[in-house]
């Protein structure tokens, strides 16, 4: 927005403040829905990045970095590390690389919950997708 006339973005910013949370909660729902229904780490990650892109559209880059001081390259690296470690974890049980397991665990407060190690792998995918997408967008956005 390098135009000489400054526009007042009050409507866009107010709507963004509300809609951001709706998009993020929907992306988290998609992330956990991936086991039995459509969804998963990739779509959830893209959804979350799209929410942050909406913030970037409504505010400027400096403000968003102030709100979310995250290094997205580190985030992508952390995601890859988590995904690899879930694969390495299968060696401790004497099964091939990337073997996944699941089981019903009785947790306090939550009751009978099904936990799967595939969710951890999906978390890695989720972080990589957010990291890569926002690294691309921020790199393009910062070069004048």
């Amino acid at each position, binding site marked *: 927005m390098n135009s000489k006339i*400054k*526009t*007042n973005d*009050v*409507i866009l*910013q*107010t*709507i963004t403040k509300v809609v951001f949370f709706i998009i993020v909660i929907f992306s988290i729902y998609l992330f956990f829905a991936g086991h039995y229904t459509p969804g998963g780490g990739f779509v959830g990650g893209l959804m979350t990045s799209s929410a942050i892109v909406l913030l970037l559209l409504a505010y400027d880059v400096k403000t968003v970095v102030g709100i979310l001081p995250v290094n997205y390259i580190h985030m992508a690296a952390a995601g890859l590390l988590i995904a690899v470690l879930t694969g390495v974890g299968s060696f401790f049980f004497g099964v091939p690389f990337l073997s996944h397991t699941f089981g019903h665990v009785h947790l306090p407060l939550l009751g009978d919950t099904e936990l799967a190690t595939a969710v951890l792998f999906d978390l890695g995918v989720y972080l990589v997708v957010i990291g890569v997408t926002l690294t691309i967008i921020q790199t393009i956005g910062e070069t004048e």
Partner: protein
Amino acid sequence: MAFQILLNFFVAFLWMFLKGQYAAQDFFNGYFFGLLMIFALRRFFARRFYLWNVGAVLKLIYIFNRELIMSNLAVLKVVLAPKINARPGIFKLETELKKDWEITILANLITLTPGTLVVEISEDNRFLYIHAMDLGDAEEARNDIKNTFEKAIQEVSR
């Protein structure tokens, strides 16, 4: 308003803990008793009793839906008319609303009214520039907006 709702929830939870039963029915019972209590002690609070605000929100939703239907019917009339004899133009409207969300809701409501559309908001949030499909009754449109929407929105944030 938010504080009263929070207090009401707190009373409802207390009621559940006293009963020792954690069901939705007990929560609603506790919520109802808390509502009666807050109503009885409504003079303690800085803001008015929050059910009136909830009523104002419902009224705003009703106005919103009514305007949506009316505006689409008005546009249908204009589109199907054999000749368009309207004079389009942009007029300025001064608003007394201060908060961001109030101005956003007002702008969206104006956009949904028949024949008006918000194109710009001034830097100090005091003036709205509105494009009218027919400028012949701009003054009438101004008063209309002032009397219905601004009042309804002010009711909500009282």
